[in-house]
């Protein structure tokens, strides 16, 4: 590969608090050779591969900590190739894949399969997560040490929560030995049982059993209490409610070290969007009230929330074309993560650098990976963004194999025009 010279860009690298006009040089091995305002057309070789970015934004490729792939077992919902295309068109260059496949990613033999498939079929960096418990049954813990050695980035039961408090305490206690990252989906199953929507006025009107915020808060409180006793690397996958947020804030104020994420859906939508039983908006955790949504935005600004994820969960038509209570939960989102998040910037709710940090440097730090930054020497995983470009989400134009976007027909502002992985252009939009 020849060296590439990216010029005339607004360079944003939240990790190093850089926001300046300049360029970036990609070395022949695909890493970043130089970056910043000193890289201009005047101090590079004249015969080089120049790409004029015309003042568009250049930022690190996004790191999405919560993505459901579909391989193995649910290839009809999403495979590595379709996921890769979808992710790259949204500027996402690294993902953490959830273990809720069939079979579940819960033993070392599955890891090689995943890594091989991911490498052969996709162009994104796949960081596989394994389950916390065997077959995500919540009964026996998986082999954290061995799995981690094989390349598992973290442990989560994905769409499920370890209910048994004794087992959870032991998991946290044991996982610290191997310094494994625990990622919990916070939901008390008994409280949420049969529920499909936030408990409140809308659930009363629609006649659907509600999921109270307490179902989330109780697990967050439980796990953070354990964390005081059994310190480990602990991350709450995504929260949805003001109640859970206040617990997180209080614990962070007390100096407890952990991290928390939020799905872009819970930042951009609320329970009213469900309207007349739109199953594409049946999510887990559920969309909550506008008040909850606003509090989550505040939680980002005050540092209580560290990460924004797409919670990309492809579902085929048959799984969604059911009554609301029977329909599958989840929505696609990896390719709209950044544009939808930009709404929060355009609406002047979150500063751009902050917003980007929650999808680049922060997740990289939590995961302990060398991604999400434009530092010299790092892989040139890059995203070029036209921050003002207006466009309308159309499910048939999205690249994911499944079409269950929760934001069909939404007008967004900002689109990814180029994506690089290890210095190669892997996506380009005209």
């Amino acid at each position, binding site marked *: 590969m020849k060296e590439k010279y990216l010029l005339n860009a607004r360079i944003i690298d939240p990790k190093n608090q850089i926001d300046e006009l300049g360029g970036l040089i990609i070395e022949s091995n695909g890493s970043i050779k130089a970056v910043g305002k000193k890289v201009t057309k005047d101090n590079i070789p004249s015969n080089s591969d120049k790409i004029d970015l015309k003042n568009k934004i250049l930022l690190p490729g996004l790191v999405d900590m919560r993505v459901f792939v579909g391989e193995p077992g649910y290839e009809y919902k999403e495979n590595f190739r379709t996921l890769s295309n979808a992710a790259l068109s949204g500027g996402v260059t690294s993902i953490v894949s959830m273990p809720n496949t069939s079979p579940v990613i819960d033993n070392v033999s599955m890891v090689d399969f995943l890594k091989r498939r991911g490498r052969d079929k996709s162009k994104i960096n796949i960081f596989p997560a394994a389950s916390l418990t065997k077959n995500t049954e919540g009964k026996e813990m998986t082999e954290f040490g061995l799995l981690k050695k094989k390349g598992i980035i973290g442990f989560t039961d994905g769409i499920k929560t370890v209910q048994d408090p004794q087992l959870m305490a032991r998991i946290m206690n044991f996982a610290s030995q191997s310094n494994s990252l625990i990622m919990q989906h916070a939901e008390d199953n008994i409280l949420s049982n049969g529920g499909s929507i936030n*408990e*409140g*006025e809308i*659930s*009363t*009107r*629609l*006649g*659907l*059993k*509600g999921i109270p915020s307490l179902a989330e808060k109780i697990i967050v409180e439980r796990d953070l209490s354990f964390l005081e006793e059994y310190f480990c690397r602990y991350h709450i996958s995504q929260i949805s409610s003001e109640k859970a947020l206040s617990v997180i804030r209080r614990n962070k104020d007390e100096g407890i070290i952990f991290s928390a994420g939020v799905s872009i859906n819970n930042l951009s939508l609320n329970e009213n969007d469900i309207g*007349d*039983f739109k199953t594409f908006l049946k999510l887990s955790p559920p969309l909550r009230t506008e008040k909850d949504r606003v509090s989550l935005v505040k939680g980002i600004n005050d540092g209580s929330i560290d990460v924004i994820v797409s919670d990309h969960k492809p579902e085929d038509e*048959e799984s969604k*074309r*059911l*009554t*609301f*209570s*029977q329909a599958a939960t989840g929505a696609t989102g990896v390719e709209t993560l950044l544009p939808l998040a930009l709404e929060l910037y355009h609406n002047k709710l979150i500063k751009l650098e902050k917003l980007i940090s929650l999808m680049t440097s922060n997740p990289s730090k939590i995961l302990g990976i060398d991604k999400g930054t434009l530092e010299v020497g790092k892989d040139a995983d890059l995203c070029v963004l036209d921050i003002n470009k207006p466009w309308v989400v159309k499910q048939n134009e999205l690249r994911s194999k499944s079409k269950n976007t929760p934001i069909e027909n939404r007008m967004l502002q900002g689109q990814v025009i180029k994506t690089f992985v290890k210095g190669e252009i892997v996506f380009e939009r005209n």
Partner: protein
Amino acid sequence: MAILKKLKAVKIKQNHLLGIQDLSLSDVSLILEEAKSFISLNKSSSKKIDLLRGKTQINLFFEPSTRTQSSFELAGKRLGADVMTMNIVNSAIKKGETLIDTAMTLNAMHPDIIVVRHQDSGAPNLLSQKVNCSVINAGDGRREHPTQALLDALTIINRKGKIEGLKIAICGDILHSRVARSNIYLMNMLGAEVNVVAPKTLLPHSIEKLGVKAFTDMKKGLDNCDIVMMLRLQNERMHGSFVPSPREYYEYFGLTPDKLEMAKKGALIMHPGPMNRGVEIDTNLADDINRSLIKEQVEFGVAVRMSCLKIFCKKN
């Protein structure tokens, strides 16, 4: 009747009767006016007319029902429609066929109207998007049971002359009740003041947002009421999961003569049936012909359903 007379009945906009929430005041008045003409027909010796001759009505019941199902069946037959009733409780849907598949199969038989009851809230809405005929909701999950509310309204109007200005208490398992929700919407729309009375465990979240006052003390909830609507408390909810026991429930939430004292003199009692005598209602009160409208509710139910079938069947 004043409120109804003021409005000239116009055609209904909706293709389907999915819930009271979708209806306007003029829609309701049209349905009730039509229903009134059927009350006398149902009392006459020759009850059958040919208004819907040649039309096919399918009753699609995913949940067991006695009253509503027979009421719709009779209503369709009296209007001259060909009525087919399908009980899917133990049928194809259990074998993995989805609601949509069932709907598509039935749709291929060219029905003119489908009456559906389903345990999932929103099922009739989903069905209505997939078939070419009109859909009437005969009860979906906890969401709505519009014809029950309409027959309740007709029953009240028949006795009281109007609903506007009345004070109505709905008592019992509000949480799980589609009858309660439909009645709250309809009675509010018709100008009544609505109280709901239930133990806290059986009151839905944010119920006040639906425009009612919520009470956990039955005597306060019944204070000065014209109408007391009792709801059924299902057996499995009586024994510890929502209330401790039937006798504790009866003590505080059963309709007894002493609690009824709080309501207006001559207040009327309603119940959508089937009743648990001695659990939610004193058995003598249920049978008191001066106070209980329970039999009229069943009678007017047929008339209201005839009206709905006539109005919505014509839509397609």
